[in-house]
């Protein structure tokens, strides 16, 4: 085309980024694995495909167990020295890696685009700079760790499995915090997109990172499985699908491995009638047509207020005509290739199903390249909440649209999902926006922006979008363990009821359970004897069953009032509980003497329990969030929100103190609780309901069950409306809890060793952290 012709068409022409340097580097193919800073020859090679052309880029090796073992061994051997380095020394390595990523940013961008199919603009302007940013940010945390988080230690060897949608960026999200906090790493990139990880391995060599600190093994899910199941790995960090995340939760159940899961999403994108509609349209582009929609937090469920729905759709449709789909290496491409044939097929099938179920389909009228896996930007309008395309993640450039009438309805529709990763709100009314944001069941909320990420702000989900945070101060805890407060072995006491269960007689001497603010008899009508330290039956306790669990969770789920109260109001109530407990000190001392405490020990336990209630009452209005310093003109609030309903299976030690030590932090942060009282000696816990009942605690906030933990635990752990479960007991129970929790991916916190509840370490921020979700709310400002 000559200039005169161009003047008629005013086309952009082509502007391809050069791939010469990347091709040169790819000549090393076939690739091996990176262990101990050396390349280990691999075998069982498979092809890495460029999804934009369908052509082979390189050959990647499938690691076997021998390779994985070798990598774990290397990481294990490197761990003590790495952890022993000063924060400043570790920071220097992270800083060097950040610099090296920047220095090699162009080849990394090109490799990423070749391998994944994403537009070069995105890999160049977003993925790679953000990857460097994560290393810079965490270099800082390495430096500050000693002063900011004393009493915390690295975990050891961390296994990390990452997805194909942001290969380099996800690797940075995983590796930077892990090594900053003194852990060593075995990382597996996705088999579709291993190239930038392999290039990064070379940067680790150039940075003279100590051998074994970062190890990279390649291959498909079988390699991931080997990592997940490896006995010498202390933590698994996974980003990927909810289905795989659930499997990992099951596989690691009872292993003692720490786990963080960043899974799927079906995030709401709410457009209020007072929004800047043109800005919101660009928000949609950033939300669902960024990275071909292959984004876990993609705003994929559009909720438009009815009064502006027609106008918004018209604007959106017009905007779609301007999107350029094609060669990802072309600098003018907006939407690149879908990562592979399978994903392309899955998107196609889901959209077809959506249309069959009645969706009205609008697609960008663009010509797609003949080779490669391209899918046009798509809007499925007029869908219903029950449609497959509304419920399931499509992981492609497909948006589903519904309308709503009132803000309350927007909240209902937004939260009508098993997922809870992100939400986006567009409104020019600060009252409305900040009314909606806290109500979103999501780990991240973007107000008047979409898909904003930064190393200083935590990222992660609630509900079935997984647990744990990546980035920010809150993300550090995924790679650290607080100092322990385990009791000496001799203190271990069996937490099992003895004696046969008996039918409740008419002359009731049964200590009742407490559900929904009422004393209740066990549903099954059975009770069991409670023995004192001498083995004499002193009374009977209700034998809770699955229906009691059901009733307690339901009562707690409905008791939303506690979570809505201000921290100050909760504080008043908690002081009141402490005050009322202190009035009944003598009674509780007697109970604890039955338990076998000496009079002195009994008195001390009651006093400590009162102290602990006061301690957490004090924290109510002090364990607040942060405002993160993200690099834009915005307030990024990391808000501490209650998790919701927490189940707590209490330990055998210190039956009053341990109960209070667990209930109080959960209550202080606004959660409602379902407490399984100590099995063998539930009496102090059951007595406590009288205290709670007279302390202005709203009904259903605290529910106390007695009975055999093994009868109730499975129901509790498998309850889909329970948000978290803390478990103190034996190994079998911990395994069961973690296994059953996989169903709705509830947060678990399990302990199989007896604890020293009298220790000052048996209280504090660790308990509070387990009682909150950190929600990051991004609000750009400026007029």
């Amino acid at each position, binding site marked *: 085309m000559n*200039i005169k012709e161009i003047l008629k068409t005013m086309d952009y022409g082509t502007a391809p980024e050069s791939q010469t340097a990347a091709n040169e580097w790819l000549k090393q193919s076939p690739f091996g694995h990176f262990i101990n800073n050396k390349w280990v020859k691999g075998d069982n090679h498979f092809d890495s495909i460029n999804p934009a052309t369908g052509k082979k880029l390189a050959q990647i090796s499938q690691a076997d167990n021998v390779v994985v073992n070798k990598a774990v061994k290397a990481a294990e051997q490197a761990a003590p020295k790495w952890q022993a380095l000063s924060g400043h020394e570790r920071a220097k390595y992270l800083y060097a890696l950040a610099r090296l990523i920047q220095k090699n940013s162009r080849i990394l961008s090109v490799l990423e685009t070749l391998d994944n199919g994403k537009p070069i603009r995105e890999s160049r302007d977003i993925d790679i700079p953000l990857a460097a940013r994560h290393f810079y940010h965490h270099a800082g945390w390495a430096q500050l760790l000693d002063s900011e988080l004393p009493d915390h230690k690295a975990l050891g060897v961390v296994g990390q499995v990452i997805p194909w949608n942001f290969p380099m960026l996800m690797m940075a999200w995983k590796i930077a915090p892990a090594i900053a906090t003194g852990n060593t790493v075995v990382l597996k990139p996705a088999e579709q997109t291993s190239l930038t990880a392999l290039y990064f391995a070379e940067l680790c060599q150039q940075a003279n990172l100590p051998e074994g600190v970062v190890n990279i093994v390649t291959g498909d899910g079988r390699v991931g499985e080997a990592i997940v199941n490896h006995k010498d790995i202390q933590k698994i960090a996974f980003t990927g699908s909810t289905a795989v995340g659930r499997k990992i939760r099951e596989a690691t159940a009872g292993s003692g491995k720490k786990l963080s899961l960043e899974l799927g999403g079906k995030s709401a994108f709410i457009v209020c009638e007072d929004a800047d509609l043109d800005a919101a349209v660009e928000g949609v582009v950033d939300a669902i047509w960024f990275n071909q929609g292959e984004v876990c937090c993609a705003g994929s469920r559009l909720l438009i207020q009815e009064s502006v729905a027609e106008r918004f759709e018209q604007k959106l449709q017009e905007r779609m005509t301007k999107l350029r789909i094609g060669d990802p290496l072309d600098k003018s491409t907006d939407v690149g290739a879908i990562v592979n044939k399978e994903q392309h097929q899955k998107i196609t099938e889901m959209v077809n199903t959506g249309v069959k179920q009645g969706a009205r389909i609008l697609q960008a009228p663009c010509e797609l390249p003949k080779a490669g896996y391209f899918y046009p930007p798509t809007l499925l309008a007029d869908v219903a909440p029950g449609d497959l395309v509304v419920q399931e993640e499509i992981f492609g450039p497909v948006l589903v649209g519904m309308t709503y009438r009132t803000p309350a309805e927007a909240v209902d529709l937004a939260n009508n999902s098993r997922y809870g990763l992100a939400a986006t709100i567009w409104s020019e009314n600060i009252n409305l926006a900040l009314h909606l944001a806290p109500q979103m069941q999501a780990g991240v909320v973007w107000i008047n922006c979409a898909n904003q990420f930064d190393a200083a702000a935590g990222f992660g989900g609630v509900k079935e979008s997984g647990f744990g945070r990546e980035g920010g101060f809150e993300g550090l805890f995924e790679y650290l363990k607080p100092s322990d407060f385990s009791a000496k072995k001799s203190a271990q006491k069996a937490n099992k009821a003895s004696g046969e269960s008996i039918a409740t007689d008419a002359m009731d001497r049964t200590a009742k359970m407490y559900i929904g603010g009422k004393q209740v008899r066990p549903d099954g009508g059975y009770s069991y004897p409670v023995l004192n330290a001498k083995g004499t039956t002193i009374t009977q306790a209700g034998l809770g069953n699955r229906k009691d669990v059901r009733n307690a969770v339901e009562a707690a789920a409905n008791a939303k009032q506690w979570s809505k109260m201000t921290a100050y109001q909760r504080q008043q109530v908690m002081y009141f509980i402490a005050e009322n407990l202190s009035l009944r000190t003598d009674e509780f001392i007697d109970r604890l003497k039955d338990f076998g405490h000496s009079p002195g020990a009994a008195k001390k336990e009651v006093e400590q329990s009162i102290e602990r209630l006061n301690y957490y009452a004090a924290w109510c209005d002090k364990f607040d969030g942060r405002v993160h310093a993200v690099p834009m003109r915005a307030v990024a609030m990391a808000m501490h929100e209650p998790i919701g309903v927490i189940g707590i299976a209490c330990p055998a030690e210190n039956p009053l103190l341990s109960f209070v030590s667990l209930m109080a932090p959960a209550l202080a942060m606004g959660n409602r609780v379902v407490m399984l009282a100590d099995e063998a000696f539930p009496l102090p816990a059951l007595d406590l309901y009288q205290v709670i009942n007279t302390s202005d605690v709203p009904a259903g906030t605290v529910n106390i069950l007695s009975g055999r933990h093994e009868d109730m635990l499975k129901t509790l752990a498998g309850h889909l409306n329970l948000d978290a479960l803390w478990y103190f007991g034996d190994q079998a129970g911990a395994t069961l809890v973690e296994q059953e929790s996989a169903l709705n991916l509830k947060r678990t916190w399990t302990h199989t060793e007896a604890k020293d509840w009298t220790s000052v370490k048996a209280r504090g921020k660790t308990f509070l952290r387990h009682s909150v979700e950190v929600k990051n709310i991004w609000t750009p400002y400026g007029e």
Partner: protein
Amino acid sequence: MTQNQITRNPGTEINLDWINNIQANTSATERRAATLGARRSIKKDHQAAWLIKAISLIDLTTLAGDDTEQRVRRLCAKAKNPLRQDLKEALGIGDMNLTTGAVCVYHDMLATAHKALEGTDIHLAAVSTGFPAGLTPHELKVAEIKASVKAGADEIDVVITRKHVFKQDWQALYDEVREYREACGDAHLKTILATGELATLRNVAKASMVCMMAGADFIKTSTGKESVNATLPVSLTMIRQIRDYLHLTGYKVGYKPAGGISKAKDALVYLSMMKEELGDEWLEPELFRFGASSLLGDIERQLEHHVTGHYSAAHRHAIG
């Protein structure tokens, strides 16, 4: 090029509800503006073509207190021959009648410019209504427009009364512009908002809509005399209003960013923004102009580089 195919915007009744509901989110607008340059890349022959296009869209301007007739004649000569003939030949457009879109001067220079441009298609624009502050008596402003039209201007660049915006007195702004439009007759009306003084994008958006409702043919950012002139966020805000006005009424209104656009690269970003946000029709002089004086020089240098492969120097191109 398409000439006179655009139906002139006759204006509409003022719709205060519509105006009061206009929203403009500054941060989001800035974010979109910041990625515009990165989302589209125009290279090689395409870049050359786009720069040639840009020349045809320039309102070559001199608005200085020390302007003289000779200076204005020189400017008009440049408008008629904005690019060296040897470069045109090398670019394959030797036979093309390439001129700037218009010449823009003060009323005092109209006669000179009118004469100098005789026999060409180049429009002659006069800044008016007490430019740049716009605080002369209203009747004098109207008289000034009429005088300029009589003196040969076929485009009138008026400044709006900024206080109407700050008072949110949209009726007053509407009435004022409506009168200017009537005074223009067949001459096209460009309303300068002086966006650098309007403080917020919301004000810019609302003032844009009022001017269009009152019958503006173009909305224009700046006089070039404010401390902040044309910017991408302001431009996005204004052209989004143009789009809404089109949806609302079916009439196409032109856009003229003025002041501060002096680099060829910036011109490309502006053009791609118009193409993306409004479409190819806004790449024609009927609906888009650059108000600029030094932009042309940079484009000439870039085009010489495109032809020869050597970075150019200003003295190799005739000054205007």
